[in-house]
Protein backbone atom coordinates (compact mmCIF):
# COMPACT_ATOMS: atom_id res chain seq x y z
CA UNK A 1 0.00 0.00 0.00
CA UNK A 2 1.63 3.26 -1.08
CA UNK A 3 1.77 6.27 1.19
CA UNK A 4 0.47 8.50 -1.59
CA UNK A 5 -2.98 9.86 -1.02
CA UNK A 6 -5.56 8.57 -3.50
CA UNK A 7 -6.92 10.75 -6.30
CA UNK A 8 -10.61 10.76 -7.04
CA UNK A 9 -9.86 8.68 -10.12
CA UNK A 10 -7.81 5.94 -8.47
CA UNK A 11 -9.53 5.80 -5.10
CA UNK A 12 -11.23 2.43 -4.65
CA UNK A 13 -14.97 2.71 -5.14
CA UNK A 14 -17.23 3.90 -2.37
CA UNK A 15 -14.36 4.45 0.07
CA UNK A 16 -14.21 0.70 0.60
CA UNK A 17 -11.03 -0.91 1.90
CA UNK A 18 -10.74 -3.99 -0.26
CA UNK A 19 -8.08 -5.75 1.84
CA UNK A 20 -8.52 -7.26 5.31
CA UNK A 21 -6.62 -6.16 8.41
CA UNK A 22 -4.66 -3.28 6.92
CA UNK A 23 -4.40 -1.72 10.39
CA UNK A 24 -1.38 -3.94 10.95
CA UNK A 25 0.56 -1.33 9.01
CA UNK A 26 -0.05 1.25 11.75
CA UNK A 27 2.30 1.35 14.74
CA UNK A 28 0.14 1.90 17.81
CA UNK A 29 3.28 1.17 19.88
CA UNK A 30 3.99 4.87 19.55
CA UNK A 31 1.14 5.53 22.02
CA UNK A 32 3.16 4.02 24.86
CA UNK A 33 4.65 5.78 27.82
CA UNK A 34 5.44 2.64 29.76
CA UNK A 35 6.15 -0.86 28.52
CA UNK A 36 5.65 -4.37 29.92
CA UNK A 37 8.69 -6.57 30.60
CA UNK A 38 8.08 -10.31 31.04
CA UNK A 39 10.32 -12.25 33.42
CA UNK A 40 10.30 -15.59 31.60
CA UNK A 41 11.64 -17.41 34.67
CA UNK A 42 8.37 -16.67 36.48
CA UNK A 43 6.01 -17.28 33.55
CA UNK A 44 3.61 -20.18 34.10
CA UNK A 45 2.09 -19.93 30.60
CA UNK A 46 -1.32 -19.16 32.10
CA UNK A 47 -2.17 -17.05 29.01
CA UNK A 48 -3.80 -14.25 30.98
CA UNK A 49 -1.68 -11.64 29.18
CA UNK A 50 -2.67 -13.06 25.82
CA UNK A 51 -6.37 -13.30 26.56
CA UNK A 52 -6.77 -9.83 28.07
CA UNK A 53 -4.65 -7.73 25.73
CA UNK A 54 -6.94 -5.22 23.98
CA UNK A 55 -4.49 -4.90 21.13
CA UNK A 56 -3.74 -8.57 20.38
CA UNK A 57 -0.14 -7.63 21.06
CA UNK A 58 0.76 -10.81 22.89
CA UNK A 59 1.76 -13.91 20.99
CA UNK A 60 3.08 -17.35 21.72
CA UNK A 61 6.73 -18.08 20.98
CA UNK A 62 7.86 -21.41 19.48
CA UNK A 63 8.97 -22.40 23.01
CA UNK A 64 5.41 -21.92 24.27
CA UNK A 65 6.24 -18.72 26.17
CA UNK A 66 4.65 -15.38 25.57
CA UNK A 67 6.11 -12.26 24.10
CA UNK A 68 4.78 -8.79 23.53
CA UNK A 69 4.84 -7.13 20.15
CA UNK A 70 6.18 -3.66 20.79
CA UNK A 71 4.93 -2.46 17.41
CA UNK A 72 1.40 -2.46 18.80
CA UNK A 73 1.62 -2.52 22.61
CA UNK A 74 0.06 0.68 23.98
CA UNK A 75 1.42 0.12 27.47
CA UNK A 76 -2.01 -0.08 29.13
CA UNK A 77 -0.67 -2.34 31.87
CA UNK A 78 -3.51 -4.89 31.88
CA UNK A 79 -1.10 -7.77 31.32
CA UNK A 80 1.00 -6.76 34.31
CA UNK A 81 -2.05 -6.62 36.58
CA UNK A 82 -3.63 -9.85 35.32
CA UNK A 83 -0.46 -11.94 35.14
CA UNK A 84 -1.11 -14.75 37.61
CA UNK A 85 2.52 -15.30 38.81
CA UNK A 86 3.27 -11.54 38.64
CA UNK A 87 5.91 -12.08 35.99
CA UNK A 88 5.21 -8.82 34.16
CA UNK A 89 6.38 -5.40 35.28
CA UNK A 90 5.69 -2.05 33.65
CA UNK A 91 8.74 0.12 33.07
CA UNK A 92 8.95 3.64 31.76
CA UNK A 93 9.39 3.89 28.05
CA UNK A 94 12.67 5.59 27.19
CA UNK A 95 12.52 8.62 24.95
Amino acid at each position, binding site marked *: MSNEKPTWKNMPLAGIIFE*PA*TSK*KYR*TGDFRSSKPIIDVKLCTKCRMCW*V*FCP*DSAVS*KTPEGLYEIDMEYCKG*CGICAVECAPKAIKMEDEEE
Partner: protein
Amino acid sequence: MTQTNFYRSIKDFPEEEFFAPGHRACQGCGETVAVRHILKAAGPDVIVISATGCMEVVSSPYPFTSWAIPWLHVAFENAGAVASGVERGLLALKRKGILSQKTIKVIALAGDGGTADIGLQALSGALERGHDFVYVCTDNEAYMNTGIQRSGSTPFGAWTTTSPPGEVKPAGQMTWKKNMPEIAAAHEIPYVATATVAYPVDLINKAKKALEIKGPAYLHVYSPCPPGWRISSEKTIQMSRLGVQTGIFPIFEIENGKRLLTVKPSRRKPVREYLKLQGRFKHLSDSDVEIIQKRIDEQCNQYGLPSL
Protein backbone atom coordinates in the same frame (compact mmCIF):
# COMPACT_ATOMS: atom_id res chain seq x y z
CA MET B 1 -30.90 -26.03 29.82
CA THR B 2 -27.21 -26.48 29.22
CA GLN B 3 -24.24 -24.31 28.58
CA THR B 4 -22.36 -26.29 26.06
CA ASN B 5 -18.65 -25.97 26.73
CA PHE B 6 -17.27 -25.45 23.28
CA TYR B 7 -14.10 -24.12 24.89
CA ARG B 8 -13.15 -25.55 28.29
CA SER B 9 -10.40 -23.05 29.09
CA ILE B 10 -8.33 -20.22 27.69
CA LYS B 11 -5.97 -22.78 26.22
CA ASP B 12 -8.74 -23.94 23.88
CA PHE B 13 -9.25 -20.50 22.39
CA PRO B 14 -8.50 -20.34 18.64
CA GLU B 15 -5.13 -18.67 18.03
CA GLU B 16 -6.09 -16.74 14.94
CA GLU B 17 -6.95 -13.08 15.43
CA PHE B 18 -9.76 -11.68 13.31
CA PHE B 19 -9.54 -8.24 14.92
CA ALA B 20 -6.11 -6.99 13.99
CA PRO B 21 -3.78 -4.84 16.07
CA GLY B 22 -3.12 -1.31 14.92
CA HIS B 23 -6.60 -0.12 15.87
CA ARG B 24 -7.00 3.24 17.61
CA ALA B 25 -8.81 2.09 20.77
CA CYS B 26 -7.71 3.70 24.02
CA GLN B 27 -5.13 1.98 26.18
CA GLY B 28 -6.91 -0.67 28.19
CA CYS B 29 -10.15 -0.67 26.17
CA GLY B 30 -12.56 -3.32 27.43
CA GLU B 31 -14.68 -3.61 24.28
CA THR B 32 -11.80 -4.68 22.06
CA VAL B 33 -11.13 -7.66 24.34
CA ALA B 34 -14.75 -8.74 23.84
CA VAL B 35 -14.63 -8.23 20.07
CA ARG B 36 -11.42 -10.27 19.75
CA HIS B 37 -12.93 -13.30 21.40
CA ILE B 38 -16.37 -13.08 19.84
CA LEU B 39 -14.71 -13.09 16.43
CA LYS B 40 -12.64 -16.12 17.40
CA ALA B 41 -15.89 -17.95 18.17
CA ALA B 42 -17.26 -16.91 14.77
CA GLY B 43 -14.28 -17.83 12.61
CA PRO B 44 -13.71 -16.50 9.10
CA ASP B 45 -17.16 -17.21 7.63
CA VAL B 46 -18.96 -14.27 9.14
CA ILE B 47 -20.17 -10.82 8.16
CA VAL B 48 -20.06 -8.20 10.90
CA ILE B 49 -22.34 -5.18 10.76
CA SER B 50 -21.28 -2.37 13.07
CA ALA B 51 -23.25 0.58 14.27
CA THR B 52 -21.42 3.87 14.65
CA GLY B 53 -19.53 3.87 17.93
CA CYS B 54 -16.20 3.17 19.53
CA MET B 55 -15.62 -0.19 17.88
CA GLU B 56 -16.54 1.18 14.48
CA VAL B 57 -14.45 4.33 14.65
CA VAL B 58 -11.28 2.86 16.18
CA SER B 59 -11.25 0.00 13.71
CA SER B 60 -11.66 1.83 10.41
CA PRO B 61 -9.73 5.06 9.83
CA TYR B 62 -9.33 4.99 6.06
CA PRO B 63 -7.26 3.23 4.70
CA PHE B 64 -6.60 1.19 7.86
CA THR B 65 -9.07 -1.49 8.87
CA SER B 66 -8.73 -3.89 11.79
CA TRP B 67 -11.31 -6.27 10.38
CA ALA B 68 -9.91 -9.48 8.89
CA ILE B 69 -13.45 -10.51 7.99
CA PRO B 70 -16.10 -8.74 5.86
CA TRP B 71 -17.36 -5.69 7.71
CA LEU B 72 -20.16 -3.24 7.01
CA HIS B 73 -20.83 -0.01 8.82
CA VAL B 74 -23.81 2.05 7.66
CA ALA B 75 -25.16 4.36 10.34
CA PHE B 76 -25.76 4.70 14.06
CA GLU B 77 -29.23 3.36 14.69
CA ASN B 78 -29.57 0.58 12.18
CA ALA B 79 -27.25 -2.33 12.96
CA GLY B 80 -30.34 -4.48 13.48
CA ALA B 81 -31.92 -3.44 10.18
CA VAL B 82 -28.77 -3.71 8.07
CA ALA B 83 -28.12 -7.15 9.55
CA SER B 84 -31.69 -8.11 8.62
CA GLY B 85 -31.01 -7.16 5.01
CA VAL B 86 -27.71 -9.05 4.91
CA GLU B 87 -29.27 -12.14 6.46
CA ARG B 88 -32.23 -12.21 4.06
CA GLY B 89 -30.03 -11.43 1.09
CA LEU B 90 -27.81 -14.39 1.92
CA LEU B 91 -30.90 -16.57 2.26
CA ALA B 92 -32.31 -15.50 -1.10
CA LEU B 93 -29.04 -15.81 -3.00
CA LYS B 94 -28.35 -19.26 -1.58
CA ARG B 95 -31.84 -20.42 -2.47
CA LYS B 96 -31.38 -19.19 -6.02
CA GLY B 97 -28.01 -20.91 -6.29
CA ILE B 98 -26.05 -17.69 -6.71
CA LEU B 99 -24.12 -18.18 -3.48
CA SER B 100 -22.78 -21.54 -2.30
CA GLN B 101 -24.49 -23.29 0.60
CA LYS B 102 -21.61 -22.39 2.94
CA THR B 103 -22.93 -21.06 6.23
CA ILE B 104 -22.10 -17.41 6.73
CA LYS B 105 -22.88 -16.08 10.19
CA VAL B 106 -24.26 -12.59 10.65
CA ILE B 107 -23.24 -10.52 13.66
CA ALA B 108 -24.60 -7.05 14.41
CA LEU B 109 -22.27 -5.17 16.75
CA ALA B 110 -23.25 -1.98 18.52
CA GLY B 111 -22.46 -0.07 21.66
CA ASP B 112 -24.93 0.76 24.39
CA GLY B 113 -25.99 3.97 22.64
CA GLY B 114 -26.51 2.23 19.33
CA THR B 115 -28.55 -0.45 21.11
CA ALA B 116 -30.51 0.97 24.03
CA ASP B 117 -31.18 4.41 22.62
CA ILE B 118 -31.01 5.24 18.95
CA GLY B 119 -30.76 1.62 17.85
CA LEU B 120 -33.58 0.18 19.91
CA GLN B 121 -36.23 0.27 17.20
CA ALA B 122 -34.15 -1.49 14.58
CA LEU B 123 -33.06 -4.10 17.13
CA SER B 124 -36.64 -4.72 18.20
CA GLY B 125 -37.80 -5.15 14.61
CA ALA B 126 -35.00 -7.56 13.80
CA LEU B 127 -35.69 -9.64 16.92
CA GLU B 128 -39.43 -9.73 16.27
CA ARG B 129 -38.96 -10.83 12.68
CA GLY B 130 -36.79 -13.72 13.86
CA HIS B 131 -33.72 -13.20 11.68
CA ASP B 132 -30.96 -15.74 12.14
CA PHE B 133 -28.22 -13.51 13.53
CA VAL B 134 -26.40 -12.55 16.70
CA TYR B 135 -26.72 -9.07 18.11
CA VAL B 136 -23.81 -8.10 20.34
CA CYS B 137 -24.02 -5.01 22.50
CA THR B 138 -20.67 -3.93 23.94
CA ASP B 139 -21.79 -1.83 26.88
CA ASN B 140 -19.34 0.76 28.22
CA GLU B 141 -22.26 2.67 29.72
CA ALA B 142 -22.19 5.95 27.80
CA TYR B 143 -21.55 7.53 24.39
CA MET B 144 -17.85 7.12 24.88
CA ASN B 145 -16.63 7.71 21.37
CA THR B 146 -18.05 11.22 21.21
CA GLY B 147 -16.65 12.15 24.62
CA ILE B 148 -18.49 10.41 27.44
CA GLN B 149 -22.09 11.59 27.12
CA ARG B 150 -24.79 9.66 28.94
CA SER B 151 -26.86 6.96 27.32
CA GLY B 152 -29.91 5.00 28.43
CA SER B 153 -27.40 2.44 29.67
CA THR B 154 -25.52 4.83 31.98
CA PRO B 155 -25.90 3.67 35.58
CA PHE B 156 -27.54 5.74 38.31
CA GLY B 157 -25.08 8.18 39.85
CA ALA B 158 -22.50 8.15 37.10
CA TRP B 159 -20.78 11.32 36.01
CA THR B 160 -20.92 11.90 32.28
CA THR B 161 -20.52 15.13 30.39
CA THR B 162 -24.28 15.40 29.87
CA SER B 163 -25.17 14.23 33.37
CA PRO B 164 -22.52 16.04 35.36
CA PRO B 165 -23.02 16.45 39.09
CA GLY B 166 -23.46 20.11 39.95
CA GLU B 167 -24.75 22.47 42.61
CA VAL B 168 -28.40 21.94 41.77
CA LYS B 169 -28.23 18.34 40.54
CA PRO B 170 -25.57 16.72 42.70
CA ALA B 171 -26.12 13.07 41.84
CA GLY B 172 -25.09 12.96 38.20
CA GLN B 173 -27.09 10.47 36.16
CA MET B 174 -30.51 10.38 37.82
CA THR B 175 -32.25 7.43 36.20
CA TRP B 176 -31.48 3.74 36.34
CA LYS B 177 -29.74 1.76 33.66
CA LYS B 178 -32.09 0.46 30.95
CA ASN B 179 -32.39 -3.32 31.22
CA MET B 180 -31.49 -4.31 27.68
CA PRO B 181 -31.14 -8.07 28.26
CA GLU B 182 -34.70 -8.20 29.62
CA ILE B 183 -35.97 -6.07 26.75
CA ALA B 184 -34.38 -8.50 24.32
CA ALA B 185 -35.82 -11.44 26.26
CA ALA B 186 -39.29 -9.91 26.09
CA HIS B 187 -39.15 -10.53 22.34
CA GLU B 188 -39.13 -14.24 23.18
CA ILE B 189 -36.06 -14.97 21.12
CA PRO B 190 -34.26 -18.31 21.58
CA TYR B 191 -31.18 -16.96 23.41
CA VAL B 192 -30.21 -13.97 25.50
CA ALA B 193 -27.02 -13.77 27.53
CA THR B 194 -24.93 -11.31 29.47
CA ALA B 195 -21.17 -11.59 29.75
CA THR B 196 -18.19 -9.50 30.63
CA VAL B 197 -14.55 -9.31 29.67
CA ALA B 198 -13.16 -10.59 33.01
CA TYR B 199 -14.69 -14.00 32.32
CA PRO B 200 -13.48 -14.74 28.80
CA VAL B 201 -14.25 -18.46 28.80
CA ASP B 202 -17.86 -17.72 29.73
CA LEU B 203 -17.93 -14.99 27.08
CA ILE B 204 -16.54 -17.02 24.21
CA ASN B 205 -18.80 -19.96 24.96
CA LYS B 206 -21.84 -17.74 24.96
CA ALA B 207 -20.76 -16.16 21.69
CA LYS B 208 -20.32 -19.61 20.16
CA LYS B 209 -23.66 -20.77 21.49
CA ALA B 210 -25.39 -17.64 20.18
CA LEU B 211 -23.85 -18.24 16.77
CA GLU B 212 -24.91 -21.87 16.69
CA ILE B 213 -28.52 -21.19 17.70
CA LYS B 214 -31.02 -20.73 14.88
CA GLY B 215 -32.87 -17.45 15.05
CA PRO B 216 -32.03 -14.23 16.87
CA ALA B 217 -29.61 -14.23 19.79
CA TYR B 218 -28.71 -11.25 21.95
CA LEU B 219 -25.41 -10.96 23.81
CA HIS B 220 -24.80 -8.08 26.19
CA VAL B 221 -21.17 -7.57 27.17
CA TYR B 222 -20.31 -5.24 30.02
CA SER B 223 -17.06 -3.53 29.03
CA PRO B 224 -15.21 -1.08 31.27
CA CYS B 225 -13.84 2.07 29.65
CA PRO B 226 -10.81 3.70 31.34
CA PRO B 227 -11.31 7.27 30.12
CA GLY B 228 -15.08 7.16 30.55
CA TRP B 229 -15.14 5.48 33.95
CA ARG B 230 -12.15 7.48 35.19
CA ILE B 231 -9.99 4.50 36.01
CA SER B 232 -6.41 3.95 34.99
CA SER B 233 -5.96 1.78 31.95
CA GLU B 234 -4.59 -1.32 33.69
CA LYS B 235 -7.71 -1.71 35.84
CA THR B 236 -10.15 -2.69 33.08
CA ILE B 237 -10.33 -6.40 33.81
CA GLN B 238 -10.32 -5.86 37.59
CA MET B 239 -13.28 -3.52 37.28
CA SER B 240 -15.16 -6.01 35.14
CA ARG B 241 -14.52 -8.67 37.78
CA LEU B 242 -15.66 -6.40 40.59
CA GLY B 243 -18.81 -5.59 38.68
CA VAL B 244 -19.67 -9.28 38.78
CA GLN B 245 -18.58 -9.77 42.40
CA THR B 246 -20.81 -6.91 43.58
CA GLY B 247 -23.80 -8.14 41.59
CA ILE B 248 -23.85 -5.01 39.44
CA PHE B 249 -23.18 -7.10 36.31
CA PRO B 250 -25.37 -10.20 36.62
CA ILE B 251 -23.93 -12.82 34.30
CA PHE B 252 -26.57 -15.19 33.03
CA GLU B 253 -28.26 -16.65 30.03
CA ILE B 254 -31.93 -16.92 29.12
CA GLU B 255 -32.67 -19.85 26.87
CA ASN B 256 -36.25 -20.21 25.72
CA GLY B 257 -37.46 -18.22 28.70
CA LYS B 258 -35.45 -20.05 31.37
CA ARG B 259 -32.83 -18.09 33.29
CA LEU B 260 -29.53 -19.49 34.47
CA LEU B 261 -26.68 -17.71 36.20
CA THR B 262 -23.42 -18.78 34.61
CA VAL B 263 -21.02 -16.85 36.84
CA LYS B 264 -22.06 -16.87 40.46
CA PRO B 265 -19.80 -15.32 43.07
CA SER B 266 -19.90 -17.38 46.27
CA ARG B 267 -20.04 -14.18 48.30
CA ARG B 268 -21.23 -10.79 47.14
CA LYS B 269 -19.15 -7.68 47.78
CA PRO B 270 -20.78 -4.35 48.67
CA VAL B 271 -21.23 -1.97 45.75
CA ARG B 272 -19.03 0.61 47.49
CA GLU B 273 -16.00 -1.48 46.58
CA TYR B 274 -16.79 -1.05 42.91
CA LEU B 275 -18.01 2.56 43.04
CA LYS B 276 -15.13 4.01 45.07
CA LEU B 277 -12.54 2.89 42.56
CA GLN B 278 -14.04 4.82 39.66
CA GLY B 279 -13.70 8.56 39.24
CA ARG B 280 -17.13 8.76 37.61
CA PHE B 281 -18.72 7.92 40.99
CA LYS B 282 -16.51 9.95 43.31
CA HIS B 283 -19.12 12.65 43.88
CA LEU B 284 -21.63 10.19 45.34
CA SER B 285 -22.73 10.71 48.90
CA ASP B 286 -23.15 7.87 51.39
CA SER B 287 -26.89 7.97 50.95
CA ASP B 288 -26.49 7.73 47.15
CA VAL B 289 -24.39 4.62 47.65
CA GLU B 290 -27.07 3.18 49.95
CA ILE B 291 -29.72 3.77 47.31
CA ILE B 292 -27.59 1.98 44.74
CA GLN B 293 -26.89 -0.87 47.18
CA LYS B 294 -30.60 -1.33 47.80
CA ARG B 295 -31.37 -1.43 44.10
CA ILE B 296 -28.60 -3.90 43.40
CA ASP B 297 -29.82 -6.06 46.31
CA GLU B 298 -33.24 -6.24 44.66
CA GLN B 299 -31.64 -7.06 41.32
CA CYS B 300 -29.58 -9.82 42.91
CA ASN B 301 -32.65 -11.33 44.56
CA GLN B 302 -34.31 -11.48 41.18
CA TYR B 303 -31.39 -13.27 39.60
CA GLY B 304 -30.60 -15.61 42.47
CA LEU B 305 -27.28 -14.01 43.39
CA PRO B 306 -26.14 -14.42 47.02
CA SER B 307 -27.00 -11.79 49.59
CA LEU B 308 -24.31 -9.57 51.04
